[in-house]
């Protein structure tokens, strides 16, 4: 039967592609089903007025030099048989945690952050060093780690809440599904990937990563079906049987690995006998929908940021001593932002100057807006973005040649994630196992996220549940 597979992978984002490659590489008959017409998911790309943009790439985390052993980046490249050099990585110049009273610089050399802390928080140097030692020794990727909150741990080492807020800020906005805090394992993952390893960018941006994955996918013989939205995942007697696509086809497999998200996956799970019924009763408790989503302005400039004297790569801006990492009550929260200058990596391969400004945003509020209002508020986001840049540097607005804004509803539309959530549900499934035999999660809601994290998630779930039987 040609609609019978060893494994069906739902979603052709970073995690689904990586899982598909691993499984097919060792002879499994695999099909990836993707609802969109292109790959990449949250980390995809698009074209507007002949310009190519990345959706979810400020920077790739986890930078290490070629040949560095046993680190996430080199591990994942090895598992996918992708040579390090093919990414043509450029390192960040430097990044900035920008609070009103202090500005902490960091780059891919951890010494810089240490020296900044000893300059501005000399009373915390000892505590910080001990904290780093503790972090270094913690096994953050053990699949049986319990969930406990990171700020409680940080407070055992650090007394100054201002410093704690500053250290947490980049880690929260780049990877916490929780508001104002994060699970300690996730904290350690983020701490290592951002402060101890660092930021880089593949030449050509996200397309470079995706093309490398697609080449591997083709080599491995994995099938990939676009425009194939999964309407239902079928189970019988507690075991997964396959998937029903929206266009009507049914594909069978005893194993299904889903990167849709935890609540999104459980929502479409259905007893085989109930398939034709109007209402399908799903007795499972619904996992929580992740609260955090973003809106982002992308502006093109007729000058490079360096011509304004800016050499920062990413700025984590916050306007008070406390960082509010929460779903905003209003459309978006302009008290804090991430400002990214993709030009400011060691080698700038972009034709124009680009600035990206990200705010936390509330999906429901954006979703409620009627079209004219929606447009109006998008322009407000753009104004606020330029204002933040102005407050950090100088007025950029005369230099803007093109701009685009995307919101949580854009994210929902293209990735299917409920409420446009970016870091997924707070109900993670570390070992990937759902209550249904043969149905596994990979990607964001398994617990590893970001570009590097989601690929590692796909690899480890494929290894664990698909290859090691």
């Amino acid at each position: 039967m040609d609609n019978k597979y060893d494994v069906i992978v739902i979603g052709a984002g970073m995690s689904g592609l990586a899982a598909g490659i691993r499984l097919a590489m060792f002879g499994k008959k695999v099909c990836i089903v993707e609802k969109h017409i292109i790959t990449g998911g949250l980390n995809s790309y698009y074209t507007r007025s002949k310009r190519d943009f990345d959706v979810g790439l400020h920077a790739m985390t986890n930078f290490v030099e070629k040949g560095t052993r046993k680190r996430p980046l080199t591990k994942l490249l090895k598992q996918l048989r992708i040579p390090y050099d093919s990414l043509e990585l450029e390192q960040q110049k430097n990044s900035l945690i920008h609070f009103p009273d202090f500005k902490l610089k960091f780059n891919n050399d951890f010494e810089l952050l240490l020296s900044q802390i000893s300059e501005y928080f000399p009373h915390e140097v000892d505590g910080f060093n001990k904290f780093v030692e503790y972090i270094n020794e913690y096994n953050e990727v053990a699949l049986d780690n319990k969930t406990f909150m990171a700020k409680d741990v940080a407070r055992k080492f650090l007394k100054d809440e201002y410093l704690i807020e500053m250290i947490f800020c980049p880690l929260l906005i780049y990877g916490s599904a929780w508001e104002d805090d994060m699970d300690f394992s996730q904290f350690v993952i983020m701490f290592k990937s951002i402060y101890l390893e660092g930021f880089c960018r593949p030449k050509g941006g996200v397309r470079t990563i995706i093309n490398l994955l697609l080449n591997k996918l083709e080599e491995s013989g994995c099938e990939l079906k676009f425009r194939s939205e999964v309407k239902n995942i079928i189970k019988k007697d507690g075991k997964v049987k396959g998937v029903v696509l929206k266009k009507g086809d049914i594909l069978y497999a005893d194993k299904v690995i889903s990167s849709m998200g935890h609540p999104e996956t459980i929502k479409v799970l259905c007893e085989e006998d109930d398939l034709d019924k109007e209402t399908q009763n799903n007795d499972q408790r619904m996992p929580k929908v992740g609260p955090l989503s973003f809106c982002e302005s992308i502006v093109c400039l007729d000058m490079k940021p360096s011509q304004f004297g800016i050499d920062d790569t990413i700025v984590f801006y916050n306007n008070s001593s406390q960082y509010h990492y929460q779903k905003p009550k209003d459309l978006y929260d302009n008290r804090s932002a991430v400002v990214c200058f993709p030009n400011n990596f060691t080698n700038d391969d972009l034709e124009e100057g680009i600035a990206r400004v990200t705010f936390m945003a509330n999906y429901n509020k954006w979703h409620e807006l009627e079209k004219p209002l929606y447009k109006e508020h998008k322009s407000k986001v753009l104004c606020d973005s330029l204002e933040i840049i102005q407050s950090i540097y100088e007025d950029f607005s005369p230099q803007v040649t093109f701009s685009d804004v995307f919101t949580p509803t854009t994210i929902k539309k293209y990735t299917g994630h409920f409420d446009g959530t970016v870091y997924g549900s707070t109900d993670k499934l570390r070992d990937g196992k759902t209550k249904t035999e043969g149905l596994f999660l990979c990607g964001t809601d398994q617990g590893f996220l970001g570009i590097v994290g989601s690929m590692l998630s796909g690899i480890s779930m494929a290894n664990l549940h698909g290859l090691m039987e």
Partner: protein
Amino acid sequence: MTAQEVRQVVVDIIADIAIDDDVTTIDDATPLREQLDLDSMDFLDIVMELKKRHKVEVPQEDYPELATMSGCVQYLTPKFQ
């Protein structure tokens, strides 16, 4: 297959897995893990590649036999006959 040929089979597989490592300098007596960027996941890959390319199966309890190159050759050569 001669022992030398079996060694080459293993070297070829390792070269494809430890893609950025130099496999021409492997010392046969020293554990592979100490010389190359290989972890337990990669050993699983070596075993799976042996099966995929040469239909040679290595049961899990025998994985320790593959710790060094000379161990690999000694353990695998009879399986290639």
